């Protein structure tokens, strides 16, 4: 309450009437909101920021405890690291490409179907999305291994005489990861395709463009932002993917995350493992930042769309 009192019917020239009480009230309000947020923020800080920051710190020291850049220099000097990076990016590009090739037609079909049919088809996208990565990786192991479904069918049909090696190698990793990451591309792409105004397409056809020209000149350009966000998410997730390459790579396909696990668990070289993590995070954030800068969209959009 204020001690200054204004007399009725008298204009008060003082423009700071009660500001102290009002500011205190505003501060109380802010503190209340922070109190609501603080448990969550504290947890995130303790479990993400502190450990990740700690790893960054570790990555700056070599085995003798001296400050050095040797953990990072290793990436260029040792062929095995270079090979890991090459493998990782190769997988990421191929999987992202495969997701685009499969995901775009699927999302396009979903966006063109009547609402009811689309929502039924969407179940087939969302269910795998929420099924454990382990379960899906296991399924692909069963399907692709030497004595697995594909090979036994093909041999029974007489197409091949020797089993193809589909699992425990590069192709197994790519197939498994494509399957797991496909919904991450389809869902944001479908959501963005749904927002394309049908009147735009009608207008295009009205102006004499055929179905193909309408698609190429109107629909496709309008769907690009959704496609871009799906591509970025899939690519970024590929870079740090662990479960599928670890189980389906047969020890031959060493990707970035596996390398981190091996360096820290197997060799207990925390500095080197941490340096790998730092670079991985930097690349991830750079890609997301670049995407956000180009399109101004929220990179976490896919999570709210499921």
């Amino acid at each position, binding site marked *: *309450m*204020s001690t*200054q*009192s*204004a007399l*009725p*019917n008298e*204009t*008060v*020239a*003082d*423009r*700071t*009437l*009660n*500001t102290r*009480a*009002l500011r*205190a*009230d*505003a501060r109380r*309000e802010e503190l209340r909101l922070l109190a609501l947020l603080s448990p969550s923020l504290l947890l995130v800080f303790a479990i993400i920021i502190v450990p990740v920051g700690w790893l960054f710190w570790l990555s700056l020291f070599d085995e003798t405890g001296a400050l050095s850049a040797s953990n990072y220099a290793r990436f260029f000097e040792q062929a095995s690291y270079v090979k890991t990076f090459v493998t990782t990016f190769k997988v990421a590009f191929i999987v992202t490409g495969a997701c685009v090739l499969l995901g775009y037609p699927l999302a396009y079909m979903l966006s063109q179907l009547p609402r009811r049919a689309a929502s039924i088809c969407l179940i087939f996208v969302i269910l795998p999305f929420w099924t454990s990565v382990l379960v899906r990786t296991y399924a692909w192991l069963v399907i692709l291994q030497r004595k697995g479904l594909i090979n036994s069918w093909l041999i029974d049909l007489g197409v091949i005489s020797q089993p193809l090696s589909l699992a425990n190698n590069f192709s197994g990793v790519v197939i498994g990861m494509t399957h797991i990451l496909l919904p991450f591309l389809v869902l944001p792409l479908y959501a963005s395709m749904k927002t394309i105004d049908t009147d735009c397409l009608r207008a295009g056809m009205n102006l004499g463009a055929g179905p193909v020209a309408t698609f190429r000149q109107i629909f496709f350009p309008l769907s690009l932002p959704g496609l871009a966000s799906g591509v970025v998410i899939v690519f970024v997730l590929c870079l740090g993917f662990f479960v599928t390459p670890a189980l389906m790579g047969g020890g031959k396909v060493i990707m970035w995350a596996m390398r981190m696990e091996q360096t820290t668990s197997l060799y207990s070289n925390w500095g080197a493992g941490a340096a790998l993590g730092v670079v991985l995070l930097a690349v991830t954030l750079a890609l997301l930042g670049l995407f956000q800068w180009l399109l101004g969209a929220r990179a976490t959009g896919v999570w709210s769309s499921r």
Partner: protein
Amino acid sequence: MILSIAPSALPISMRAIEKRFGSVHVLRDLNLDVEAGEFLTLLGPSGSGKTTLLMILAGFTRANAGSIKVGGDEIIATPPHRRNIGMVFQNYALFPHMNVSHNIAFALKQRGVAAKETAERVEKALEMVKLAGLGERRVDQLSGGQRQRVALARAIVFEPRIVLMDEPLSALDKGLREHMQIELRALHRRLGMTTVYVTHDQREAITMSDRIAVMNAGRIEQLDRPETLYSAPKTQFVAGFIGESNFVPVESRDGSVWYEDRKIRTAAPAPAAGRYLMVVRPETLRLVENGEAADNVNVLSATVGDIIYQGDSFVCYASLRDGRQLTLRDYCRGDVLAKMPAPGQPINLGLDAKDTILVAAEG
């Protein structure tokens, strides 16, 4: 006008209210007194600060500075639930998970009123808004008008000191809106609670209010009774916002008012030397036949542009010699319409000295 002032009605006194959102100054040094039991309307275009002021009054928005006293108690930093102010929102904000009775009983429940008394008061409130017997209805089973009444009953059932309404009728269609205006007005007369009403509809404001505060760009331009606002607007903004207006640029010099080289007869003495705008209401203009003009009538020569027949009345658009448009409106009684010159013909427009209104020219 005699108001039955309820003993619970309290006056509101707002002083030096300041509100900024970031760098935008929404309210500037705003002062306003609402009398006990008065129906006061905040009228203004969107962005004028009227809703912000109402939200500050209700306690949902915090002012940067200022004082609000209700019956002498400072409430500017009081949380909304301790202000004892009833509120009706534009979208009614009825609680969809409760039936009509529970919606209305909500405030009584918060105050720990006994079940029996609650039931009686809810019943009384329902009767008052002509919804008796609908207490068990779900909110989504109600029509727009009925929802509006429930929102109103909910806001008055706990006999608040003050009732605030934020464009409560804007979601209704025209016929229902006009009907509700009259009903709201009658209810206010019956209960006599201090009411602050926000609208952008000048006709609604004129119909319902004891006084109207016309707001523009975070200030109150004029606070007056509706008749005064219409007949004696103090600024160009008020004249333009309330009713239809023609503006004619005039000049005050040598103790007289001049339009170009023609002296304008005014009822009031000429104001201080300078440029002014003469506000001409369309219904105060009339056709003057040659040589007929009396002493206290100003005659403006113009050319008829178009005449539009509207059934009970007609509108004549005419242009003065400098090209300025004037609008004349009159009822189609007698041979008034028949006497009007054809489009393209000259016309003499008469304006009584007592109908001349001068406002300062803005900009």
